[in-house]
C-alpha cells in the first residue's frame, strides 16, 4: 500500500460510489439530515439521552450470565478440564467449538470496515462501528477458550516466545502456535482500527459533553483531535493502509484456525477445502451476528434513519452468498470422500449422515443451507423480523457446524477399538452461556458510552448526498 491516493481519486471514488448507490434507489441515509442533525442525534444517545430501562434489563441479564462464566472458570481451575465432557478419543469439546464460533463471528466487523471500505461501499458507514466493536468483543470471548481448555492454563505463556531459563521455545510447527499469533494479531489490529475510527467522534463527544468528567474522559481519548486539514489527510491515508492490511489479515485468521483441523490427519479434518470454507463460514456467522444486533438496536434507539432497509438488504445478500459458499464446502467434503476413495473419510461422511450425531448434522444443513435460501425473495429481505429470525437460525447453525466438525470426526477415527462418544456436562454449557454473557455485558456498555455509529462518516454521507442533489 505504498501507492499514495491523491485526494482527487478519493473525491471521485466517493462521487461514483454515491452515484451508483443512490441510482439503485433505496438511500443509505434518510433524506433531510444535516451535519448538525446527525451529530446531535447520535451523540445524544451517549451524552444526553436518559438510559432506557431496556438497557438496564439487558445489562443485568448479561451480567448474571457473566457471573455464571466466573463460577465455571473458578470451578475449572479448581478441578481441571475433567469437569467437562471431553474424554478419549474426543479430547476437544465445547471449548474449541466455542472458540471457532466466536472467532468466526469476529470476522464481520473488520470485514465490513476494511474490505467494504476498499470496495468503496458507502453503505457500510452506519454499521461498521458497532460491527467492529462486536468483532473485538467476540475475539475477546474466543480468546478465553484456548486458555481455559488447557490442562495447565497457568503455563499459557509457554506458547509465547520469550527468553527463559529452560532455553526452550514454542514449537512453531504447531497450528496452535499459529493460532496464538493469528488471534493476538487480529485482536490488536482490530483494536487499533476501531480506535482510530473513533478518534474524530471522541472529539465530537468531547465538544458536545457538558459534564467536566465526560469532557476529560472523551478529551483524553480524543488525543486532542481538532479536525485539522492535514490531520484529515493523513488520517484517511492511514485508514486506507489499515484497511489494506486488515483485508488479508481477516482472511488469514480463520484460515489459520482452519489449519488447527486441516493440518491434523484426523479423517474429517484433513481436507484442503477447509480454509476457504471456514472463511466463508466466518463471514456468514459474522454477518448473521451483525444482523442479530443491528435489528434490535435500530428499533431500540430509533436509528431507522441511519440503518436503513438498504443496509439490511445488502447484509441479507451477503448472508445468502456466503451460505451458498459454505454449502459448496459441505458438498465438496462429501464429494472428495467419495472421489478420493478414502475409506476413513467415507466413514466420517456416513457417520455424519447416519451416526450418533446425525440430528445435529441435519440441523446444521437446515440452518446454514436451507434457511438462507428464502433470502432470494426481496420481500423477505425487506422484513426486519424475518431477517432477525434467519440471523438467529444461522448463528445456531454455524455453532452446530463447528460441533460436528470437532466432535464427530474425533469420536470415530481410524481404529474401531478406540471409538467413543462425547457428552457435554453442565459445566460445558455454563462456560458457553457464560461467554455469551461476557459478550453482551461489554456490548451494552459499548452502546451506552461510545457512539455506535460513526458520526463523522455520517456527516460525510450528508455532505455527499447533498453534493449529489446539488449536481442534479
Amino acid at each position, binding site marked *: 500500500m505504498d501507492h499514495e491516493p491523491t485526494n482527487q481519486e478519493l473525491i471521485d471514488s466517493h462521487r461514483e460510489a454515491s452515484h451508483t448507490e443512490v441510482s439503485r434507489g433505496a438511500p443509505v441515509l434518510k433524506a433531510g439530515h444535516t451535519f448538525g442533525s446527525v451529530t446531535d442525534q447520535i451523540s445524544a444517545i451517549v451524552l444526553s439521552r436518559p438510559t432506557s430501562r431496556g438497557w438496564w434489563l439487558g445489562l443485568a441479564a448479561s451480567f448474571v450470565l457473566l457471573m455464571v462464566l466466573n463460577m465455571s472458570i473458578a470451578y475449572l481451575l479448581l478441578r481441571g478440564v475433567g469437569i467437562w465432557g471431553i474424554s478419549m478419543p474426543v479430547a476437544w469439546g465445547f471449548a474449541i467449538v466455542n472458540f471457532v464460533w466466536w472467532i468466526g463471528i469476529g470476522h464481520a466487523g473488520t470485514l465490513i470496515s476494511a474490505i467494504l471500505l476498499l470496495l468503496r461501499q458507502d453503505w457500510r458507514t452506519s454499521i461498521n462501528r458497532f460491527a467492529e466493536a462486536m468483532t473485538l468483543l467476540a475475539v475477546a470471548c474466543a480468546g478465553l477458550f484456548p486458555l481455559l481448555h488447557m490442562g495447565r492454563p497457568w503455563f499459557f505463556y509457554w506458547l509465547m516466545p520469550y527468553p*527463559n*531459563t*529452560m*532455553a526452550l521455545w514454542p514449537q512453531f510447527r504447531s497450528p496452535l502456535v499459529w493460532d496464538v499469533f493469528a488471534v493476538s494479531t487480529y485482536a490488536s489490529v482490530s483494536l487499533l482500527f476501531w480506535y482510530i475510527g473513533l478518534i474524530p467522534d471522541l472529539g465530537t463527544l468531547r465538544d458536545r459533553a457538558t459534564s467536566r468528567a465526560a469532557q476529560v474522559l472523551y478529551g483524553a481519548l480524543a*488525543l*486532542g483531535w481538532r479536525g485539522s486539514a492535514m490531520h484529515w489527510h493523513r488520517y484517511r491515508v492511514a485508514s486506507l493502509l489499515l484497511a489494506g492490511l486488515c483485508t488479508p489479515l481477516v482472511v488469514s485468521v480463520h484460515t489459520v484456525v482452519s489449519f488447527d483441523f486441516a493440518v491434523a490427519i484426523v479423517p474429517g479434518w484433513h481436507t484442503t477445502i477447509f480454509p476457504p470454507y471456514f472463511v466463508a463460514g466466518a463471514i456468514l456467522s459474522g454477518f448473521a451476528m451483525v444482523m442479530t444486533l443491528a435489528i434490535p438496536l435500530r428499533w431500540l434507539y430509533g436509528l431507522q434513519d441511519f440503518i436503513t432497509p438498504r443496509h439490511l438488504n445488502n447484509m441479507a445478500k451477503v448472508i445468502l452468498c456466503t451460505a451458498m459458499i459454505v454449502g459448496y464446502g459441505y458438498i465438496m467434503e462429501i464429494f472428495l470422500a467419495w472421489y478420493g476413495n478414502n475409506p476413513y473419510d467415507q466413514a466420517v461422511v456416513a457417520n455424519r449422515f447416519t451416526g450418533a450425531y446425525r440430528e445435529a448434522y441435519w440441523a446444521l444443513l437446515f440452518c446454514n443451507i436451507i434457511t438462507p435460501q428464502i433470502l432470494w425473495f426481496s420481500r423477505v429481505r425487506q422484513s426486519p423480523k424475518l431477517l432477525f429470525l434467519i440471523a438467529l437460525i444461522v448463528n445456531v447453525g454455524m455453532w452446530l457446524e463447528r460441533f460436528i466438525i470437532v466432535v464427530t470426526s474425533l469420536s470415530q477415527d481410524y481404529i474401531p477399538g478406540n471409538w467413543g462418544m462425547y457428552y457435554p456436562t453442565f459445566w460445558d454449557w455454563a462456560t458457553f452461556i457464560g461467554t455469551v454473557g461476557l459478550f453482551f455485558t461489554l456490548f451494552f456498555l459499548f452502546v451506552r458510552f461510545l457512539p455506535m455509529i460513526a458520526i463523522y462518516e455520517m456527516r460525510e454521507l450528508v455532505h455527499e448526498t447533498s453534493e449529489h442533489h446539488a449536481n442534479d
Partner: protein
Amino acid sequence: MAQIFHPNTNAISRASIFGALFAVVIAGWLLDSFNRSDYWTEVGVPRAQPVPFSHAHHVGDIGLDCRYCHASVETSAFAGMPATEVCLGCHSQLFNKAAILEPVRASLREQKPLQWNRVHHLKEFAYFNHSIHVAKGVGCSTCHGPVNEMPLMWKQNSLSMQWCLQCHRHPENYVRPKEAVFDMDWQPPADQAEQGRRLVELYHIAKLEPAGAAPQEPRKSASASKAAAAKSSPDDYFEEEQQTGAAPVVKFRDPLTNCSVCHR
C-alpha cells in the same frame, strides 16, 4: 469553548504512549532477571546445617577425597551421604568431646539419623545420575564449584535447564581427564577446546553408537565423529546431506539434548 486541559498535558500525553510500551518491556526484563538472580536461584547462599560441617576444612585443609563420604558417586545416581558411623570413624578419636559434634554422637547413641539440609535440589521430574557424569570426566568442581573453599556448602550454579544444556551441548568446553575428576584444584588448560574435543572422542561422550559391532569395544562411526570435530554450532547437532540417488537424509547426533535423558 474553554480549554479542557492544561498546556503541559501535551508533553505528558505524548510521553505516556511510548512510556507505556517502554514500561511493558522493562517489566518483562525485570521479571526475567529476577528469575535468574542469585536471590531466586540461591546461588552462593550458604545453608545452615545441624552440624556446621566445613568442606573447606575437610577437603581443603585435610584433603579428604570426595568419595570418602560420598561413596556411591561412581556407581549410583545418588552420590551418597555419609552414615553417622563414617563421621565418627575419625571423630570418635578426634574432637570426640567437641560440643559442636554432639549431634553426631547423639545420632549414634540414639540411633537417630542426622538431618542435613539439602543444598542442591532438583525438581522431581528431572533425573540426574552422578555415576555417568563422573565416569565421563565431568569433575565435581565443574558443577559444585570450589567445594574445598566452602566453610558451609552453597550452590555454585543455578541448576537451571539452560545451565545444564551449556555443557550437554558443548561438553568439550568442560570435560577433564578422568583422573582429575575429583581434583578440586584442576583448572581447564589453555587449549581446553582442543583437549576437550580429544577427551570427548576418547570417552565416547555424546556420540550415538552405531549398532552391530562387537559389544566389547565401543561402537562408533569414525566418520561421524571426525565430522563432529570439524563442525561448529549449530551443526554440532546435525548435518544435512544430500545422498546421491537416495532420498535426502538428515543425520544427527548427540543424544545429550534429547528430552528423556533427564525427563521420564
